């Protein structure tokens, strides 16, 4: 099975040609949007953690990693000029991939109007560059697919998660790479994960990072939601049960390793296979986390939430007949009444993966994407809880 993609100078393959405008500080968001509005494929990623570096290193790492994502053809980095993070701090490493990168420091070029004018010229150059790119055929094994769920209901555990899991297994068998995350929702799954981990050292890392997440989200005295009454009325009895249902979407293949995201580094998968990662359970932040890991697209199991992000297209798989609408990409509701098997549903999902890889938009691509949420771990909480990442 093949798809047509765009070979980037660094050897990665893009399934979209996005023009990424990075606002290094929130002050540049308006400039970025004024430029972006005239270009269909322009995407704005704004750092709203302010312009200071200390404490926000994980965000800086993500800005750079998203710029390096293969779906991004070219980049414009804009900073106001009075912050600690300059545009070259972001542009330099992105530029090492060989893709075209421009920078603007608003104060240096003379203000907002001049920045919008210059930025528009740069985007026109990027658009011309993209116009000259030709797609080539590549095997499906070159794809990196993220897996996430949102708003578990009864159909998630029975229909959408198992059918996506079966599709993930098939993708891995074809030599592709898949990435799961949402470590808080793997509590209670440790026995299953241990059996799948490719080595004891990998399982130790997985365990430590799950424990880190458990601590972040169970601070005594705070009322953090982990399971809603609705989940339970709908039939889920324990967090282990919810997690095990969610785990189904990750398939059954060995877990090569767990990809980390922190203030020091962001991992990308080097070999094909299945990976876990620190992709957050929060949907918006997860989209950007997946982009940071180099993912091409995301398989998303749900009842009916229409989530998408403008860099890594999201394929929505739903098994809930009552909530199904035209935001959904793959209908697996037949599993609930026995008119479809998990196996045939997984084939439908694979077909959709190839379509999206070939450039066919998802149901809501270009119509109403969610904004790009930059989520990072708070260094103050990490310190107070005494949490640390695993050494490479």
């Amino acid at each position, binding site marked *: 099975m093949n798809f047509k993609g765009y070979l980037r100078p660094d050897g990665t393959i893009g399934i979209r040609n996005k023009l990424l405008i990075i606002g290094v500080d929130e002050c540049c968001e308006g400039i970025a949007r004024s430029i972006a509005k005239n270009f269909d494929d322009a995407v704005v990623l704004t750092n709203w953690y302010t312009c200071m570096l200390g404490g926000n290193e994980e965000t800086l790492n993500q800005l750079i990693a998203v710029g390096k994502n293969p779906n991004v053809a070219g980049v414009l980095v804009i900073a106001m000029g009075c912050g600690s993070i300059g545009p070259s701090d972001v542009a330099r490493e992105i530029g090492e991939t060989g893709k075209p990168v421009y920078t603007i420091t608003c104060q240096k070029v003379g203000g907002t109007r001049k920045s919008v004018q210059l930025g528009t010229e740069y985007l026109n150059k990027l658009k011309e560059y993209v116009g000259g790119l030709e797609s080539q055929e590549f095997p499906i094994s070159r794809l990196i697919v993220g897996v996430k769920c949102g708003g578990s209901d009864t159909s998630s555990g029975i229909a959408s998660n198992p059918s996506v899991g079966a599709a993930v297994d098939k993708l891995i068998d074809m030599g592709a790479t898949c990435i799961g995350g949402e470590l808080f929702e793997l509590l209670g799954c440790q026995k299953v994960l241990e059996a799948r981990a490719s080595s004891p050292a990998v399982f130790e890392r997985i365990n430590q990072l799950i424990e880190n997440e458990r601590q972040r989200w169970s601070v005594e005295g705070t009322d953090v939601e982990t399971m809603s009454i609705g989940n*339970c009325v709908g039939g889920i009895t324990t*967090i282990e049960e919810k997690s*095990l249902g969610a785990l189904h979407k990750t398939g059954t293949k060995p877990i090569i390793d767990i990809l980390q995201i922190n203030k020091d580094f962001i991992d990308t998968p080097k070999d094909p296979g299945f990976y876990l990662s620190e992709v957050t359970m929060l949907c918006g932040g997860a989209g950007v986390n997946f982009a940071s890991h180099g993912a091409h697209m995301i398989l998303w199991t749900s009842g009916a939430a229409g989530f998408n992000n403008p860099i890594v297209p999201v394929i929505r798989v739903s098994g809930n007949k009552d909530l199904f609408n035209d935001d959904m990409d793959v209908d697996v509701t037949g599993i609930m009444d026995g008119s479809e098997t998990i196996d045939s549903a997984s084939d439908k999902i694979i077909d959709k993966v190839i379509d999206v890889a070939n450039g066919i938009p998802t149901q809501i691509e270009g119509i109403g994407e969610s904004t790009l949420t930059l989520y990072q771990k708070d260094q103050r909480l990490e310190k107070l809880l005494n949490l640390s990442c695993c050494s490479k």
Partner: protein
Amino acid sequence: MVATALENTKAGETAEIYLPDNTILGNVLALEYIPFGNKIAIYDIPKGTKVLKYGAEIGVSTEDIPKGSLVHVHNVKSQTVDIPPAIKEEIMRQIREKQERGA
């Protein structure tokens, strides 16, 4: 040793149990109302047994659960982070309310 109800099942009704490939494993007589999405015991589960679903442990039974009973927060507890008793009561209350409404 549990199966998930794919439709509301009344007390006294017999349910067919399906495997993932849509072949039939067997039948179970529902001893009580089992709402859509909830679990029924397909074997007797003694108190203190690890409850298995999808072949993995989802919790421990807190009382003897006869075959055909509803398996949920009132007779199963988590082995990691359990639901507070007041919330468990509210969950069961909402389930009973749905049954009375004929949902």
